[in-house]
């Protein structure tokens, strides 16, 4: 398994996509810091990247990696290696290098500009942004692998990836808004809280927004959310939900991968 993982890393770092991904975040974050010098404002912009671009890229690149290494997987399967280690090696290879690209791209400019920062350095805020981004990578790469093992057809696979992305970033929030409007006579703070806890993208978004100063706009609803997220229970729950969202597609994909007839 370690040998496989080593090979995967070697393969990934030759991959130009990862380099572009890293450069994208590096240039974006540095230019943001160059213009504002306020970490809170930079995080506000990067948040959009974390909840939109990171899931999308993880899904697309994840499916590409899986489809591209089809021949190599078949070769490996003819060797006496169990399928679990192949799948995990591929998954870790992809997620670790994607997260590294994101992490370094976002972190290096921050460390570089840390001396010139105006206002507070916002360590916790920045850390939560990075953790959210890494989780997004892990979750959506797991989805990508699940999709790529399920669909033989590449076009279908990409279609499904886009659909998953649309569901988590767009359709789910639409459903929440619909529920809020449809059940407006009821006290909805807690149901809405539960609903948004079920979507990893919403957790990441709300968790970061509650620490930004726009949280003052959120009023009564925001206060309830903040009260929940400020407790250890809230922190642990959101962390747990993120982990569940990673493990669920991963095990499902592994199960399919084990049974799949290549």
């Amino acid at each position, binding site marked *: 398994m370690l040998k496989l993982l080593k090979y995967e890393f070697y393969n990934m770092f030759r991959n130009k996509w990862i380099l572009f991904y890293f450069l994208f975040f590096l240039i974006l974050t540095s230019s943001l810091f160059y213009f504002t010098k306020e970490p809170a404002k930079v995080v506000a912009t990067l948040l*959009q990247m974390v909840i939109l671009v990171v899931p999308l890229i993880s899904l697309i690149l994840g499916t590409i990696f899986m489809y591209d290494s089809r021949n190599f997987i078949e070769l490996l399967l003819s060797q006496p290696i169990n399928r679990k280690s192949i799948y995990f090696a591929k998954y870790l290879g992809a997620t670790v290098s994607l997260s590294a690209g994101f992490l370094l791209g976002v972190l290096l400019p921050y460390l570089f500009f840390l001396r010139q920062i105006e206002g507070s350095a916002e360590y916790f805020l920045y850390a939560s942004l990075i953790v959210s981004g890494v989780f997004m990578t892990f979750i959506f790469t797991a989805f990508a692998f699940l999709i790529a093992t399920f669909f033989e057809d590449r076009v279908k696979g990409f279609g499904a990836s886009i659909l998953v992305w649309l569901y988590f970033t767009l359709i789910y929030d639409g459903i929440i808004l619909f529920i809020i409007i449809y059940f407006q006579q009821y006290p909805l703070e807690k149901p*809405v809280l539960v609903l948004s806890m079920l979507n990893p993208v919403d957790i990441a978004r709300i968790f970061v927004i509650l620490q930004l100063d726009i949280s003052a706009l959120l009023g009564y609803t*925001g206060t309830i959310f903040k009260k929940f997220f400020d407790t250890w229970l809230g922190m642990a729950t959101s962390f747990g939900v993120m982990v569940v969202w990673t493990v669920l597609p991963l095990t499902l994909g592994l199960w399919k991968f084990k049974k799949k007839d290549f």
Partner: protein
Amino acid sequence: MKRLFLLLFLLYTAGLEAKTITVCPDCPINSIKKALEQAEDGDTILIKKGLYREGNILVKKSVKLIGEGYPVIDGEKKHEVITVKANGVLVKGLVIQNSGKSDIEDIAGIKFFRTKNCRIEDCILKNNFWGIYFAASKNGIIKNNKVIGPAKLSYLKSAFGTQIETNFGNGIHLWHCKDMLVEGNHVKNHRDGIYFEFVKNSTIINNLSEENLRYGLHFMFSHRDNYINNTFRKNGAGVAVMYTKYVYMANNRFEYNWGAASYGILLKEIYDSYMFHNVFYKNTTGIFADNTNRTIIEENDFIENGWAVRIWANSQNNLFKHNNFIANTFNVVTNSFQNPNTYTENYWSDYKGFDLNRDGYGDVPYRPVSLFGYFTENYPQSIILTRSFFIYVLDLTERIFPMLIPSKLVDEKPLMRKYEWSK
């Protein structure tokens, strides 16, 4: 001959006024109370530097109390420090501190009760329950004082602990007064910075009111007043102007009133008023208008607020003209499908239209209410979708094909460039 008489008369009166009683800790007259006993109307009591602990000092004669080198008059946290119940009293250059505290009475650093023509100037008030208190007075002047109270904003966070709002009084408190002038004061850390109730024909000018627990300026039933050139900064709930007609508000800065229950200015039941050249910077809500009618809001700047204007359906016939709306999260929010107000010739920084005939006005009308803004006002829980991609898409489609937002709430002539009034 007449002139000679006049001269003699003037000399005589001047001779009367010239009587000055000096008070200092080592003088024959070592207390202000003694000096007041000896004084006649029109005398000056000169208080030298030192610490005076005399309980409650009651002024019932028209004297001038003038401090030299800022003498400290201490209420030992038990008494109202100075109470004035005479006309034409001048209080100048004193440090008044540590008044008592009560749940029943409004104990102040200095209280003027039923007075005319009184002045308080260049005084420093520290740690008093109420600061400067005028009740049922006329023609008073409050000028260049520094009023610093014991209430820190951080106490608000422990709202259910011992340090609650009602444990603190107001900085400058005017009740049932007429023709007053409040000028150049600095008020900090009280419950309300400046408090006006039933105060008519008065002016509040050049004051700084900051970090008060509740309102920077609290203003009720006070018709025909002006407040000009004031700065209200970091107050717990901003500024509230309520139940008043004919207020003139100009050149004020409302800034950093940031919090879940904070406004730049709350206008409640305001009629026929005028807002001109004010700057709203970084407030949760710039203007919150509840039942505000026939008010003109002209040439103001709204910069980086959460909501620039929240205007409820019960506010009618107001005019918004030549205002600059720059980088606010929501420009205008309302809970109504109708639009009983007029918005014209404003500058909106997120206006995306064009100006083909180059007359300075955009050719496409601007709709200041976003769909999400409308949702948040009517379904408060939906605010949790802030910054969601879904909301962005929704707002974009609504901008292109307006269906849901109040279709009449529109600026037909949005400015292409910022309206320059500041020069």
